[in-house]
């Protein structure tokens, strides 16, 4: 079953056009997290980063009385910052893992919560709305604290003790605001389907459940995809919050590395190094989101 048409003509990548920021055609509240940009930005950023690092290396060389350059320091600490302590899951990889888990869980829960918001049962509808509003309006760090401090770290299932790792709790905590925002996306997408679709399905004797799953939701997938991807980017940018609660992610290991070196010349390069990983991960996703948005808008 095809969910959407393939476009008739291939979409143009604005690679070789002169650098102009073009306007957003389907601008909505959810698109403020993405932006049209040229591949040249990535190049420009890379150049900037390399230039800065080089300047800093030179500066550090002039200042320092040891042989270790900033660049060598970066390389030395990268395995730890990226992968975590040996034998343990940590570092930037942990950030990504947490983002996957939180997004998957949040999407699943959010779908049901969004369907709950359009339920015919007033109790379900109102409580779904209340839960959505509650978790939409809560600061993510507060939720992290709440879950990580108040959720037990050891559970006993069928007589066996399970230690719940901190990052599991963190992933769950981050999935809650995602759940709320996905719920809003689902509700909004369903509301944007013309009532004529509901009516014709009704006239063909489809039940409400059948109508929602066979006719309405398949049409919603396309319009939910860009805001969904946008929230994934926002989520990934929020995963370093877990470092505040003691999880050994990329941020906290970077701080550990800096503390171990205790050289102020390395501060800027190390932070920029970590930020560039996030940038390189997130920027293509944001760009893809933008392209999908444009393509879906054009084909509507």
């Amino acid at each position, binding site marked *: *079953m*095809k*969910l*959407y*048409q393939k476009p008739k003509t291939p979409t143009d990548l604005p690679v070789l056009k002169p650098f102009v920021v073009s306007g957003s055609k389907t601008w909505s509240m959810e698109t403020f997290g993405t932006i049209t940009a040229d591949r040249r930005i990535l190049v420009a950023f890379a150049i900037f980063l390399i230039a800065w690092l080089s300047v800093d290396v030179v500066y550090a060389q002039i200042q320092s009385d040891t042989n270790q350059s900033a660049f060598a320091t970066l390389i030395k600490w990268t395995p730890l910052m990226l992968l975590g302590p040996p034998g343990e899951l940590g570092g930037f990889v942990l950030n990504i893992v947490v983002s996957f888990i939180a997004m998957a869980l949040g999407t699943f829960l959010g779908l049901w919560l969004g369907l709950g918001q359009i339920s015919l049962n007033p109790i379900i509808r109102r409580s779904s709305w209340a839960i959505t509003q509650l978790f939409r309006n809560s600061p993510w760090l507060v939720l992290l604290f709440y879950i990580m401090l108040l959720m037990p770290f050891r559970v006993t299932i069928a007589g066996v003790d399970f230690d719940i790792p901190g990052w599991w709790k963190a992933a769950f905590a981050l999935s809650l605001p995602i759940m709320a925002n996905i719920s809003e996306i689902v509700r909004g997408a369903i509301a944007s389907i*013309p009532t*004529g*679709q509901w*009516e*014709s*399905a*009704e*006239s*063909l*004797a*489809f*039940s409400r459940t*059948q109508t929602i799953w*066979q*006719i309405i939701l*398949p*049409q919603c997938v396309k319009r939910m995809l860009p805001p969904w991807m946008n929230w994934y980017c926002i989520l990934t940018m929020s995963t370093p919050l877990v470092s505040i609660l003691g999880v050994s992610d990329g941020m906290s290991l970077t701080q550990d590395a800096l503390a171990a070196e205790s050289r102020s010349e390395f501060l800027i390069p190390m932070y920029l190094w970590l930020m560039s990983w996030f940038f390189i991960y997130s920027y293509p996703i944001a760009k893809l989101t933008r392209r999908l948005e444009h393509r879906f808008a054009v*084909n509507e």
Partner: protein
Amino acid sequence: MSTTTAWSPDQPIVSIKDVYKSFGELEVLKGINIDVMKGEVICIIGPSGSGKSTLIRCINALNNINSGSIKVKGMEVNNLELDKLELRKEVGMVFQQYNLFPHKTALENIMMAPLKVLNQPIKEVEEKARQLIERVNLVGKESSYPGELSGGQQQRVAIARSLAMNPEVMLFDEVTAALDPETVNEVLLAIKDLAQKGMTCILVTHEMGFAREIADHIYFTDRGVIVEHGPPATFFTEAKDPRTQEFLSQIL
């Protein structure tokens, strides 16, 4: 009041009695009485806002009525306990905005309801669907998506889609109003074919020539009441009520 009374072919298949309907303060239907026998073709005409679309939507229980009775094949539509799904299996509706499912091909649109609602075997359903495509003259367009079809083609798919459920009554709510004049004809031909093969049709339409051609009975509504009705032979030439005459003189 039970939901279903026994129905036999000598009784009207659609029986509308003393139907009143208001939207909040605004009263849209003020005592409508219409009887439709099986196989008859009824056209409802009138100025905008006269309640014609509301009436036809009430027959299919898309809108509720405030008082009165609508019986379709013995099923009482105004009864809250009525199984709407049972009603919709007997009544097919075609809308002004076609409302095809954009994520399915033409053939899949036609096949969806019998497959999912009536749970009929897929081979049967597909064969019937292809026959219906042929009947509405769209051979070759089975794998096209609604976005690739013209308005008239989409409307014909919509007709075929409703026919796939084998309804006893077909309702048409101004189905040609959103079409270009060139494509109106192809849709009217499809409806005419239906009518000639004995389908009970209730049409709300502005196409007077078409109404005159295929209708067995014409009803003129204005401001929520049926002002006048009669067979086309006498209705268009011997209209008695001044409102009817005024309306007809404006459009003919």
